[in-house]
């Protein structure tokens, strides 16, 4: 018998939360890719930076995490993510791109960066625990979610994360399509040699896009922290799935990445409820479903969702 209440609680709510998290993380990775052509292995770490910034800020302010307080910290998470992303671009990627580094070399540099950020976060985490007694390891942000009477925490998170995702998408849409900077940024992505010839400082445009990438991913880190334990591995462990979302989305459009995130989130939850559970397969297999999807995507439509949409438009 179909039970609406179970369906909402076991399928819709978790699917929305997962999807929003992967969508938020995919926005940044897609932007990294379309601006500077780097499938960055350090992308997940930007989310971890956002999560840790939230922690330290809230512990510094309140000595702990109070209901609703993560939203107070959201600007800090965005700022921290933006700062680290900006430094990565200016300090590592920009000089390497200027020297003509190949995609593979940039990918290796990005995992060097992953090691670096990951190591620093872990050390800071230990210091926070041993010196200041802040128990940040394996903590969850769920207690920092706002409380709405009559709704469970998951339901609230499903709503808030959707609102945040929509707000970010609206802001990005406005920025890209309604501001001069947005036009310049799209121009730099579309035809960089011409942009340079027209006197656009393409590197500066990319640097600003990295600020945006870091800010959005830092915010994604807060929501990751609501359902996964916060450690320095918070983002890194999600990275393969973020890659899946981005590839399925087509690596060429932010909105494609969001759709990819939704495909990852829903396929995992639906697969868990309607394939794994009835067949008595271990729940961890839900990770394998998006992996299977990406392998199928590469076999059948390497250009992903965005490619399919573009192809339809052409015909």
């Amino acid at each position, binding site marked *: 018998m179909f039970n609406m209440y179970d369906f909402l609680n076991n399928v819709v709510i978790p699917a929305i939360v997962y999807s929003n998290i992967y969508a938020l993380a995919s926005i940044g990775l897609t932007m990294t890719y379309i601006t500077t052509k780097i499938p960055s292995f350090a992308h997940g770490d930007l989310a971890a930076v956002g999560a840790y910034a939230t922690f330290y800020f809230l512990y510094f302010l309140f000595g702990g995490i109070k209901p609703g307080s993560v939203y107070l910290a959201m600007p800090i998470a965005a700022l921290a993510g933006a700062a680290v992303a900006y430094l990565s671009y200016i300090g590592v990627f920009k000089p390497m791109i200027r020297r003509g580094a190949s995609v593979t070399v940039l990918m290796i540099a990005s995992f060097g960066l992953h090691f670096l950020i990951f190591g620093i976060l872990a050390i800071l985490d230990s210091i926070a625990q041993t010196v200041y007694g802040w128990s940040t390891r394996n903590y969850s942000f769920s207690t920092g979610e706002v409380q709405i009477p009559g709704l469970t925490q998951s339901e609230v998170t499903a709503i808030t994360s959707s609102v945040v995702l929509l707000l970010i998408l609206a802001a990005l849409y406005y920025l890209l399509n309604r501001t001069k900077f947005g*036009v310049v940024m799209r121009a730099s992505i*579309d035809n*960089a*040699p011409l942009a340079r010839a027209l006197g656009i400082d393409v590197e500066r445009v990319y640097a600003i896009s990295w600020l945006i990438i870091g800010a959005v991913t830092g915010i994604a880190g807060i929501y990751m922290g609501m359902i996964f334990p916060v450690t320095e591995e918070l983002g890194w462990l999600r990275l393969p799935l973020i890659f899946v979302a981005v590839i399925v989305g087509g690596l060429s459009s932010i909105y494609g990445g969001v759709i990819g995130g939704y495909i990852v989130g829903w396929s995992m939850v639906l697969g868990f409820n309607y394939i794994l559970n009835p067949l008595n397969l271990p729940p961890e297999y839900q990770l394998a479903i998006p992996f299977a999807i990406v392998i199928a995507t590469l076999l059948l439509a390497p250009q992903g969702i965005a490619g399919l949409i573009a192809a339809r438009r052409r015909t």
Partner: protein
Amino acid sequence: MPLLKISELNAGYGKFHVLNGISLEVERGEIAVLLGPNGAGKSTLLNAIAGLATIYSGSIVVDGKDITRSSPSEIQKIGVGYVMQSPNNFGTPNIFPELTVRENLVAASVGVPQDAAEKALEEALGLFPKLKELQNRKAKFLSGGERQMLAISMGLMKRPKLLMLDEPTAGLAPKVASDVFSAIRSIRDMGITILLVEQNARKALEIGDRAFVMVTGRLRYSGPAKELDEEKLGRLIMGQ
């Protein structure tokens, strides 16, 4: 004082030497045409002026300012507009295909104060009424002639003193090409000096005041356009 003065310029791309000791002057308010066979280095000369090629020695002075070592954006600020060939030597078109006509013009007005940019935009759309109708269409859906008109308008957005055009009529039907030529004349009448690279030498010499002929990276002729007849041009190009 000439608007553009190039002295003993040697330039190319990295290891690839293209220009050998080019010296030339373009006066204010004239249309100078640059002719020569493919591979003579015409586009490279324009790229060098725009700051997009490697300069080994020599100097480029625009409006009394030495721009030999300046960046592309500095050169634009001094007043050099550049409409590249399409596709250019980076393999890209001279417009932004994914942007609308209007957005293309906005992108080309980077660094111009808001009100001046809006004025320039209206002016550009006034120069080519066709573009005004199409201003919200993505550039990739424009015809060849419309694309060239858009590219020329983009070159005008910063109100340059010198506008360089690289083969603006390549691949266009004769009727469309002559529209482009008359547009070039009206741009000159706005007081903008023009340096034009053209395949269609006959047409170019008709509208040009001064002509240069380049062959294999060297300047072979420099003088009034009227004095360059076709026979002479033919001999220059054929290397005899």
